[in-house]
């Protein structure tokens, strides 16, 4: 299964490049993953490295990103060629959102309810876009957490079913409990690239991979 999926991804990438139009619109690359995986930190890292601007605020509170944010026409240069992408930072996908979880972060009840409502709208929007509006996916996982979750399995399955190119990133390798192999074992049909979006570790390889997968 893994070999076939990998072969299909490679063929898709090669044929996409063969038939690519030099004046084509930038590809819309959605940054997906569970809450608190570091999606916004990565989006900000990419945006700052190549445009000088940030995408949005980062926080340790789950669902800090409650609306998808887009940074358009980010030009990434690799090996003498340029890749143009629109980065879409999406809210962390979950199957439940309980406003009481926000109360643990010193929030008033009204603010917690407002946040949870915005978070649910954001997740619904992110799921809709995944079906309708992205050309590729960067799937970010916290490498200190167990990747064998139903949300991860479902999302990777949804991405595969739509034949979208997907780059799996094992984030937070700056933390001692980081475990890239666990992610590789969870999704052996895909290549996993490690990084620390916060510290900027291994970003050169990430940009090489972005150029290869989405260029």
């Amino acid at each position, binding site marked *: *299964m893994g070999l*076939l*999926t990998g072969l*299909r991804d490679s063929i898709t990438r090669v044929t996409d490049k063969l038939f690519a139009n030099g004046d084509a619109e930038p590809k819309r690359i959605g940054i997906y993953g569970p809450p608190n995986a570091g999606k916004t930190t990565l989006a900000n890292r990419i945006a700052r490295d190549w445009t000088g601007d940030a995408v949005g605020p980062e926080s340790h509170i789950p669902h800090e990103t409650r609306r998808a944010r887009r940074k358009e026409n980010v030009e990434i240069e690799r090996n003498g060629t340029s890749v143009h992408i629109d980065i879409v930072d999406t809210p962390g*996908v*979950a*199957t*439940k*959102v*309980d*406003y009481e979880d926000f109360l643990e972060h010193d929030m008033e009840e009204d603010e917690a*309810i407002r946040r*949870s*409502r915005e978070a*649910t*709208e954001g*997740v*619904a929007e992110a*799921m*809709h876009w*995944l*079906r309708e509006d992205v050309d590729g996916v960067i799937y970010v996982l916290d490498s200190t957490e167990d990747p*064998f979750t*139903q949300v991860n*399995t*479902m999302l990777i*399955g*949804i991405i*595969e*079913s*739509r034949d979208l190119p997907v780059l799996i990133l094992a984030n937070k390798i700056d933390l001692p409990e980081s475990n890239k192999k666990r992610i590789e074992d969870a999704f052996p*049909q895909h290549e996993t690239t490690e990084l620390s979006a916060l510290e900027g570790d291994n970003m050169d390889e990430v940009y090489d991979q972005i150029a290869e997968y989405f260029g």
Partner: protein
Amino acid sequence: MPEIEHADGVQIDLISGERMEEKTSMEKIRMILDGVHEGKIVILEEGLTPDEESRLIEVTMTEINPDDFSGIEIESFPQSQTSNGSLLDRIMGREQTSKLTVIGPANQIESLHKDETLISALVSRR
């Protein structure tokens, strides 16, 4: 789905693949969420397609409200055979989705664990 009169219990509905196969995606999702809203644990013999799973998450999010519904817990066996199907099968809509799937209300499922051959749920009454 028929209601079983028992105020203190948790109703578990095991839904056969045959019962689901004639339904549209939205009918399946509605059946699942209606059951979960009523506090039932819904077990699907044959699971959902990836597209249906995506719509299930989307619709679930639109129905969450702080007063009585915080979402769903869902687990299925990891051996989804979807990606084993040929491209032609998928183009023709012949997705193989056979994967036992357990879905329940997040506020009643205390824990939901799985390994490759077992899904274990601890469910509280409402």
